[in-house]
C-alpha cells in the first residue's frame, strides 16, 4: 500500500514539473491599448447642394467654386482625410442610375464629379486643381506628391465641387447621390 501511495505522489510531482511551464504559457496576457485619449472627429459646414434642373452634358460648379464647404478637424488627433463617391440613383426607383465615372469624364448615363481644395492650383489630371471623385476611396488631404501634411486639431480645408452631367439621360427624374469624406488618425 505504501508503495502505491509513494508511486502516485512521485508520478504527480514529475507530471507537474513537466507540465507547469506549459500551463503557465496558457495564461498569456492579451494587451489592448487604446492610444492616449484620442478622439476623432471632423465636421463639414455644408452637406447639401440642391442643383435643380440640369441639362445634359453640362458642367455645374458650387458657388463659390472652391470655398463652398469648410472641413474642420474637431477631434484631438491629427487626421488624414479621404473622399469617395457613388452612382446617382433615381429617388423613385434605384434601378435607374447614373454611373459615376472613374476619371471625371461623362458619357451616356455616366456622370463626373470633381473636387478642388482651396489653394490647390496644379493638382489633378488636368493640372487645374480639380481631382475626380470616384467610387474608389481617394486621398482628399494630404495627398501623394503634395507638400501638405496631415490636418491637426482646429485645422480647416475649404473646397468646392464640380458636376459634369451625362451626355444623355432620361429627363424629369430626381437623382440622388452621396459623397463621403472620411478621416483616420495620421
Amino acid at each position, binding site marked *: 500500500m505504501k*508503495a*502505491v501511495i*509513494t*508511486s*502516485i505522489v*512521485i*508520478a504527480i510531482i*514529475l*507530471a507537474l514539473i513537466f*507540465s507547469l511551464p*506549459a500551463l503557465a*504559457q*496558457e*495564461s*498569456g496576457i*492579451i*494587451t*489592448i*491599448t*487604446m*492610444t*492616449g*485619449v*484620442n*478622439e*476623432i*472627429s*471632423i*465636421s*463639414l459646414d*455644408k*452637406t*447639401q*447642394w*440642391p*442643383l*435643380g*434642373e*440640369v*441639362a445634359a452634358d453640362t458642367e455645374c460648379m458650387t458657388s463659390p467654386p472652391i470655398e463652398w*464647404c469648410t472641413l474642420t478637424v*474637431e477631434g484631438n*488627433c491629427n487626421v488624414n482625410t479621404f473622399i469617395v463617391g457613388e452612382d*446617382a440613383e433615381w429617388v423613385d426607383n434605384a434601378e435607374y442610375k447614373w454611373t459615376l465615372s472613374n476619371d471625371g469624364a461623362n458619357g451616356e448615363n455616366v456622370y463626373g464629379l470633381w473636387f478642388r481644395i482651396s489653394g490647390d492650383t496644379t493638382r489633378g489630371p488636368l493640372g487645374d486643381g480639380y481631382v475626380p471623385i470616384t467610387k474608389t476611396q481617394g486621398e482628399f488631404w494630404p495627398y*501623394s506628391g503634395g507638400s501638405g501634411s496631415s490636418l491637426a486639431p482646429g485645422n480647416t480645408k475649404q473646397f468646392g465641387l464640380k*458636376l459634369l452631367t451625362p451626355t444623355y*439621360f432620361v*429627363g*424629369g*427624374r*430626381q*437623382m*440622388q*447621390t*452621396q459623397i*463621403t*469624406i*472620411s478621416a*483616420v*488618425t495620421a
Partner: protein
Amino acid sequence: MIRHIKLAGLIAALLVILLPSFTLAQDVNFSVFPAEVHIDSLPPGEAAEFELSIHNKEEIAHNFTIAAFQPPEEERREERVEFPDDSWISFSSQEIEVAANSEANVTVTVAIPREQKWVGEDWETWLGVTVESSDLLAVKLYVRLLVSSNPTVEGRFNAGLIAGIVVGIILLGYGGYCYFRRKARPE
C-alpha cells in the same frame, strides 16, 4: 409643328438632378473614441473585446452604422499587413441610434481562428463609423485597429495537454507501483 418638336426636345434636355433638396439642412457633428486601438499578443483561438464610444453632438438623434474596412496598403502603418478576414470582427450592434447630445458604446470583438498559420502576424484594419443621412455630403470616421497575434498557438483550455498529464500520471504511477512491488518482493 416643327416648333412644337423643338420645344419638346428642349424640355427633355432640361433634365432633373435634385441632389437632396431638403430645406432644413442638418449638419452632422459626431466623434468616435478611441481613434486607434492596439491588440497585442492575441493567441489564435482566442478573442479580445473593446468598446467604441460614439458621441452624437447634434440636437437630434442619429443612426450610426459600423463596419470594417480594408485600407489601401499605402495607408497602413509600417510593417502592417492586410487583416485576413473581416468576419473575425464582430460588433454588439452594427447599427445604433444615439440620442441627441449623448454617447453610446459598441462592443467590438476580434477573434482569430485557432490555426498555426495565423501566429506572429501584425495586421491592420479600419472600423468605419458613418451617420445615416440622405445629404449629398456625408462624414465617415475610421478607427485604426492594429492586431498582433501571439507567436504561438495557445488555448485557455488545452484539452490535449490536460489529457496528456492525466495519462502521464497514470503511467508513471503504475510504473512506480510495479517497480516498488518488484523491489519489495522477497528474493
